[in-house]
């Protein structure tokens, strides 16, 4: 029941809102995975990134799309938590418990095992809307290692930080370019894999329209 509610919400509420706010100017749509297990790795400047990622998949695949999100941020408040878990469909990542040695990627691996498409933001947190990419965290490599059959699709989102920068509350419609690259596959070495992902993201960034924002 709630799964269908989520599907309807994504198609008739989230998708029009995302189009209205961003124009969702997608290139490379043919590279999107349509079934899981699959991993999407995108840069992160705004909550709008999640909105966009939930709205660019065809309606057949959208049920499977689940953004990985920090449980220390989204699951703090019970109402936001219920909403995030059931309607946005987040896969919680307990960033605050990494130091304790707990396996914070367990929920993401479960979702991949169930055939979901996980969206990860390897920068770990939102950047400041300038188009710099910060250092990538290697959790995505560990997921790829655990599921070597899952393609890792790099996605560069240009301009979402202007629609809703970190710290702002009111979104302002501005076009965002979403550039989807060719999927990468696990190659056996974490550092090499991460370098490949970084290069792929930066290549997509070079193809994006210039961002005149200061």
């Amino acid at each position: 029941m709630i799964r269908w509610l989520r599907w309807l919400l994504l198609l008739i509420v989230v998708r029009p809102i995302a189009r209205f706010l961003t124009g969702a100017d997608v290139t490379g749509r043919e590279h999107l995975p349509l079934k899981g297990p699959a991993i999407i790795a995108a840069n992160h400047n705004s909550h709008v990134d999640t909105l966009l990622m939930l709205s660019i998949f065809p309606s057949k695949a959208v049920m499977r799309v689940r953004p990985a999100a920090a449980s220390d941020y989204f699951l703090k408040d019970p109402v936001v938590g219920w909403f995030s878990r059931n309607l946005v469909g987040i896969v919680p990542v307990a960033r605050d418990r990494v130091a304790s040695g707990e396996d914070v990627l367990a929920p993401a691996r479960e979702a991949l095992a169930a055939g979901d498409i996980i969206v990860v933001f390897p920068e770990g947190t939102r950047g400041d809307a300038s188009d710099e990419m910060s250092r990538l965290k290697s959790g995505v490599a560990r997921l790829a290692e655990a599921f070597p059959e899952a393609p890792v699709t790099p996605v560069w989102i240009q301009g979402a930080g202007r629609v809703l920068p970190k710290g702002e509350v009111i979104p302002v419609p501005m076009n965002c370019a979403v550039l989807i690259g060719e999927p990468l596959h696990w190659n056996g070495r974490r550092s090499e894999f991460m370098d490949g992902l970084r290069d792929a993201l930066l290549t997509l960034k070079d193809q994006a329209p210039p961002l005149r924002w200061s």
Partner: protein
Amino acid sequence: MDIIARVFADQHPHLLWGLAGVGGLVALGAVVAGALTVLRRDKDYTELRQRIFSWVVMIALISAALLAGWPATTALFAVVSFIALREFLSLAPTRREDRLIVLAAYLAIPVNYAFVALDIYGIYLVLIPVYAFLITPWLMAIIGQTRGYLASVAMFHWGLMTCIYNIGYVAYLMRTPDYELPAGAAGLVFFLLVATEFNDVAQYVWGKLLGRRKIIPRVSPNKTWEGFIGGWISTAALIWFAGPLFTPLEDTGLAVLALVLPVAGFAGDVTMSAIKRDIGVKDTSHLIPGHGGILDRIDSLTFTAPIYFHLLAWFALETF
């Protein structure tokens, strides 16, 4: 079925024949593109097919709006203004402090089109050229942002005028009373759009056929004198011969429109090219497959619409 029959029965025959003609031309284009794809497999005609498919969608949307009347046409062009302004403000340099002004600029769209819907011409005329013109720099001063002040204000003024005020005139034409017109208000809008797009296409075709001398290589390297003049003559002829079927213009008024409209279309086109060159993009987005962004499609219209309206109002229409 009854409703559909009535919608068509209420329309002027010139408009229906015109729409049928445009539909026929696009169908012909689709057949040619299909034949090329099948016959010449060594070449890739994907873009041509996309281009024609996009034409079909655009013509269907506009025809439906024109047949449905002024409320639908006003709503359609309000959406066009919004998408165009969003494209423009996203490409132009903006700053974090400007977010409020960007929102205010969007707010001008419902206000502008509300005066079209209310048919209050006296306010429509000055809303953006006077009030928005003055409010924008004032708002920016209040925010206290003086870095690049004049350039920012000018950027917002340009966006408001071209994307909202000028495009709004297409919707305002629909408020012209029928008794003044040979093919109804929809016929008036139809002819503006046909003449503008015909001019774009004619310039392109003449340029491809005869083009040798570049006209403004630093802005639009593909544009030639031959294309410009060929398009000018072809469109002027179209306006001179078909204009009386759709507009109340005659003699001097018609001649002025025939001479001025093609130049306006060309001017709108190269102005947008200059902006794109300044920003460093080829297309303003990928919204319309095979065409680019909405601004790539309506660049000429942002110049032809207000001039068409003005010439009609000056030479013929009593209402304005």
